[in-house]
Structure formats: C-alpha cells, structure tokens
C-alpha cells in the first residue's frame, strides 16, 4: 500500500477540516453569485480550485467558507451579508453534499453522514463596522470565526501587513475579543500583527485559531506566526492551521515577490497595478525571473516546525483555496490534501497524529469555544461598548 493510499484511507475516517476557502468571493467576482454558471456539483477546474467532486477526492469533511469582503469600501456590512447569503444558497443547492454546521456536534454529525460540514468565517474586523451589535448579527447568521483584521488595520486592531496603529489591540479590540468569547465565535489571528496576536492571547478566555497561517521561523513573512506565539498555543488550547500560499511559505517566493514589487515601483507603478501596462511589465519580469515553485514538502516543513514548537494538538490545515492565484506543486486544488498527508506519513507522522491534524484539533477548538461561551453567558450580558466609549 503506497503512502498515498494510506493517506486516503486515513482521511476517510478523519477527514480534513479546512480553515479557509474563498469560494464565495470567487463566485461573487466571477459570476456575481449566479451559482448555476459555476455549478460546483460538477467539475469547475477551469475556473475554481473548489468543487464538490474535488472536495470529495481531497477527503474534506468540514470547511470554513470565508465570507470575506474588501475593506476598501465605505460600508463592508452589506457585502458581508451577501457573502453569507451565498453560502446559505450553496447549502440549499447541495443538501446531500453540504451540511450546515454551527457547532462541534454538527461537525461530528456531518462526518457521520458523510457530508461536508459547512461553517462560515468572516475575514477581517472591517466586516463588523466597529459594532458589537453587528458582530452579534453575524454570529446569528452563522458566522463562527472572525479574523480580527485583513490586510489593513482596523481602528481597534493592527494588521500584519500595515503600519503599526494602536500597537496590537485597543481597549475596544479587547472588548471585541471578550464579546466573541461570550458568543462562542472563534478569534482568528491570521492576518493580524504579532502584537495583535499577543494582545488577543492575553485577552481571550477561549482557544484561538489561525485559519490560514504558517511558521515565520521557516519562512520570514509577516503573515506567518512567530515562534513565541506558537509556544503559547498549548496553554491557550488553540490551533494554527497551516496555509499553502506560496508567497507566504517559500522563502524564495517571498523574495521573488519583493523583487517583483520593487520592479513595479521602479517603473513608477503601484506594486498591485493591474492595468494593461502594469500587467505587461509584470509579465516581462516573470519571464526574466521564473516564479519559484513551492511543493508539498515546503508545507510539510512548516508543519514539522509548528509541531515542534506548538505540539501536535495545536495544528490544523487552512489551504486558502480560491483565495490565492498560485498554489504549491502537488497542492493545486482541494483534491490534493492526500498528497500532504502522504508526505507526512513518509516523514514518520503516526495515524493518531494525522487524525489530530486533519480533524480532531479543529473540532475540539470549536467545542471548547462553545463551552467557554456557555459559561460566560451565565454571568455576562451582551456588551454595549462602543469604539467611541472605549478608545477615546
């Protein structure tokens, strides 16, 4: 039996809980939610990383669907509700394949039925528009994690990819974390600055997650988790879900991206310029300097390190499929998780270890957040705090 066969067998019992998939955003951008035009019941590999047959082939048993919206718009709340509506429509269209899930028990029930437990995560504090009432509205709609920031700071939390603002979490930011604890919404620390990670770990009374982040010691990129934060996960009980995005996991790709950005700026353009001229210059650069390719082994290196620092009970997987243009060789879409599991088997990870990585840790964390919420709700009423009342 090859290790790939073993991996598939393993995933049949303990399938993958994936922390982050941007299918709703892809459907919004590509077809404006015309779900018939990108019917995920069939092969969509020409357009998407994700469809139901490939989720099956990949051994996915639970998916946090990201309800991400852009932060650079005047009001991100309506778009967030549209993204949530999109997930609900996907669930309504594919009831045999996708099971609505709000709790750890729902996840286990879906596994028992052979369906893919479907949860929602909001990617960025901008989606709550500085309002705890809006946060509770998202929870009521089924959102079970909030990433505190996306690529830019919010008024109450610093992002990993922005200039320092409040220096981590502000007083209101800590109140957001406390209210999430009270609700049973997971605090997601992907995308946030290391200062925010540390502040959130100080403020939270429930386990946190990193829905899609890898190890900074292996690849020095601000989107990854520093070792001192990974070291705190055993005490917190949380889980770091390794991501596959090449420009975060492969040092050569990090350096290449920096050089490509510098090249754009040297031509007097913004580094994310997508005009015809910008694309031409970018293509010319890419022809002269081939884009470095990450592999399954690159991601496994991160997991080996994260395991050493945080421990086997604090690892998970968050592929970021359909949220990234490029993927590692061998991890090209949602059907490829078995390749990663096979690689880890070859590196000597036991079946018990892998069951924790793929399924058990993530389910445990959601269940623990629910327990904390039940406890807190006995003593604490919904918070009426506002940004203005705490941060001025």
């Amino acid at each position, binding site marked *: 039996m090859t290790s790939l066969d073993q991996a598939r067998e393993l995933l049949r019992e303990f399938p993958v809980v994936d922390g982050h998939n941007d299918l709703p955003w892809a459907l919004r951008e590509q077809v*404006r*939610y*015309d779900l*018939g035009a990108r019917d995920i019941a069939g092969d969509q590999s020409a357009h998407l990383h994700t469809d139901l047959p490939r989720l099956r082939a990949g051994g996915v048993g639970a998916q946090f669907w990201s309800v991400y919206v852009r932060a650079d718009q*005047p*009001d991100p*709340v*309506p778009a967030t*509700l*549209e*993204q*949530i*509506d*999109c997930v*609900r*429509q996907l669930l309504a269209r594919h009831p045999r394949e996708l099971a609505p899930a709000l709790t750890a028990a729902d996840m286990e029930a879906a596994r028992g039925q052979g369906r893919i437990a479907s949860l929602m995560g909001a990617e960025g504090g901008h989606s709550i*528009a500085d*309002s705890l*009432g*809006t946060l*509770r*509205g*998202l929870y*009521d*709609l089924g959102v079970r994690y909030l990433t505190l920031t996306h690529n830019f700071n919010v008024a109450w939390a610093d992002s990993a990819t922005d200039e320092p603002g409040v220096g981590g979490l502000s007083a209101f930011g800590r109140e957001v974390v406390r209210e999430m604890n009270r609700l049973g919404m997971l605090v997601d620390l992907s995308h946030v600055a290391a200062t925010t990670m540390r502040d959130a770990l100080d403020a939270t009374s429930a386990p946190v997650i990193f829905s899609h982040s890898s190890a900074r010691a292996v690849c020095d990129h601000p989107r990854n988790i520093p070792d001192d934060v990974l070291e705190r996960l055993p005490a917190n009980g949380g889980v770091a879900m390794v991501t596959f995005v090449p420009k975060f996991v492969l040092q050569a790709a990090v350096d290449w991206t920096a050089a490509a950005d510098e090249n754009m700026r040297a031509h007097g353009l913004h580094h994310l310029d997508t005009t015809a001229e910008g694309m031409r210059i970018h293509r010319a650069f890419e022809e002269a300097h081939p884009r470095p390719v990450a592999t399954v082994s690159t991601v496994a290196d991160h997991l080996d390190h994260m395991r050493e620092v945080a421990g086997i009970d604090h690892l998970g997987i968050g592929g970021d499929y359909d949220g990234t243009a490029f993927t590692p060789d061998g991890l090209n879409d949602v059907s490829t998780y078995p390749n990663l599991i096979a690689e880890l088997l070859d590196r000597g990870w036991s079946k018990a270890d892998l069951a924790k990585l793929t399924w058990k840790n993530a389910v445990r964390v959601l269940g623990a957040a629910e327990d904390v919420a039940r406890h807190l709700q006995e003593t604490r*009423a*919904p918070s009426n705090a506002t940004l203005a009342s705490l941060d001025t």
Partner: protein
Amino acid sequence: MADLQDDLHPAAEVGRIDEPYPREAVIVTPETYEPVSDPDAEPLTRAHAVLAAHPVADGYSGLPWALRRLPWYDLDLGESAVDADVPRLRKGQVGAVFWSLHLPEADDGGRAVGATLEQLDLAKAVVAAHDEGLRPARSAGEVADARNCGRVAVLFGPAGAAALGDSLGVLRSLHTLGLRVLTLTGASWAGAAGLTRFGEEVVREMNRVGMIANLSYASAPVIRRVLAVSKAPVLFSRSAARALRPHPANLPDELLADVGRAKGLCMVPLTAEQSGPTVRDVADHLDHVRTVAGPECVGLSGTYDTGGAHPQELADTSCYPRLIAELLGRGWDETEVALLTWGNVQRVLREAHFTAHVAQQRRPPSTATIEDLDG
C-alpha cells in the same frame, strides 16, 4: 394581491404545469365562530371576554428605539418612561406586537444595513431579557406558540427600505435574522414615481422569502404597483381613513377599496394626529375602513412609543379594552372584532408563509442587482 394561481410571469416556468394552489388551504377562517361573550353584558365586560380569546396583534411599536435613551429599565415590573411594559401589555390583552426598527435619520443608505443589524440585535436582547413576558416570533405558528405559553409574541419589523442597501442578498440575510416586515419607502427604487424594475424584483423576492410589504407612507403609485405585483397580502402598519382626516399616510377610499380587493390589511393607528383626539374618532376610522375595505382587511396599530400624542383614554398599551368596548357598543359583531384584533394579522402572516413556500418551488433566489435592472 393577485391570486396565487394567477401567475404574472408564467414564462419563467417553462415545461412545468402550474398547479393551482387552493385558496381554501391558504385562508383559514373560523368556520363556525363560537361567541365568547354574553351579548347582554356591558360592552367593557364583553370586550375583556372577546380579547381573552382574540387578543390584540398590534401592528406598530417603537419600543426598542424608545428604550435606547433609558439608562436602565425593567419591562417585567413596569416602566413608566415608555408606553408599553409587560404588565400593561397584559392588561391591554395584547397577544402580539410588531416592533419597528428605527434607522437614524442621517442614514441615507450609507450605514443603514449595519444600523439595522444593531436594531435587530437590540430588539432581540430586550426580548431575551424579558422572557417571562415576551417571546420572539417569526411566523403565525410561532405567534400562536407564544400565546399558548402565555407570552406576548414580538415580531421584528417594519424596517425602512434603506435597510436592504439595495441588495437582495441583504434582504435574504435580514429575513434569516428574523425581520418580517419591510416598509417600501426611502429607497431609490420605491419613490414618488412608483416602483422601478429593481423595486418590482424586490417585491417578488420578498414574496419568495416571506417578507411582508408595509405600504404606509408609500406613494400612491408604489401602493398600486405593489398591490398588482405582490402575490402575498400587504399591510399598512399605520394608516387611517383620509376621508375622515387628511394625513399623508391615511388612505383615500379608492385605495382602501383596492386594499380590500387585494385582501391586504389596513392597520389604524391610535394616534391623535392620524385618527383624532378621542376613542370615538378612532372607532370612526375603524368603522370606515371596515365598510370600505372590509372586515377582514382592518387591523390595529398602537403606534406607541413613537413620540406622538395618543387619543384620550388610549394613552398606553393597557387601553385596548376601552376601544373594543366602543366598537361592541356600536354594534360590531363579535366575529368582526375577533378578525380586527387577531384573526386578520394571523391570516396575513400565514398567507405570506404559504406564498413563500409556493414561490420557492418555482423560483431560485434572485441574483438581480440594482445596476442590472435600474441602470
């Protein structure tokens, strides 16, 4: 409302035979009404007896917004700073109430969606904090459940059309959160000229999800168009008779007749401004609406905690029996009172639910955008 079997858009459903949905299955009227009061008793005694069996379903309350300015309140014990609390709702024999979601005036759509989420959150928190007296309800069935548990059912809505942020996805999400009534004013697609194409799509999608249209304060062209397009009954959460009192939200007789034909519901507000300064004035409006629109198309709207003055003897939510006594004294039949207080609202909620059930078999969620339809 067009009849359910009278599909305005048959072309959308090619290759499938429309199965007529029997109206009898939709409208459940008390077939044999058992009188609950002694016809020879005093009107107020009779009013209490009728309301015990057919409590008031109040079409409009501003309570959540009114509570916002209070640092502390207790609706279970009684709260004199507002017009409604649990003891007075019980004394007034109120069985259900719609809580309007007030958007700040400055919100011209910019932050209206988030403000609506906050209002829904606040309303739910108030209900949850008073669960001995109040219970949230989303359907006719849940309203009945709440009543069977001795609780006042609280329904969420109306909210202004700005709450949608011009998005049908937002409409569906707000419905998921429990919003059940939307007022078709304050949006570019429902203005003085009537409904735009997107506006019509909003109404169709409201029918599909089971969101009831409120047309008080809507322009006459919007009212007429919604009455034609909507397959579910509409309501007017705060409209009296313009023939008796000129007010922009009061309905002229020809519109009242249209409402009667469409089996909508005109809910007469208990405010001095719209109905007049006395109980008799309110009763005059109820008489008039009953005559012009029909007894199954008239309802009550307390309009408490909205800042306006109320008629004498109708100062707060405990006063409904006095009004019902006036109607019984005028010779209203007990069955008509039962429809006025409870039955008509239950019918509208039930029909909205049935219409949604049928529409969901026929139509997928609409992906239309305001840019697509209104350019």
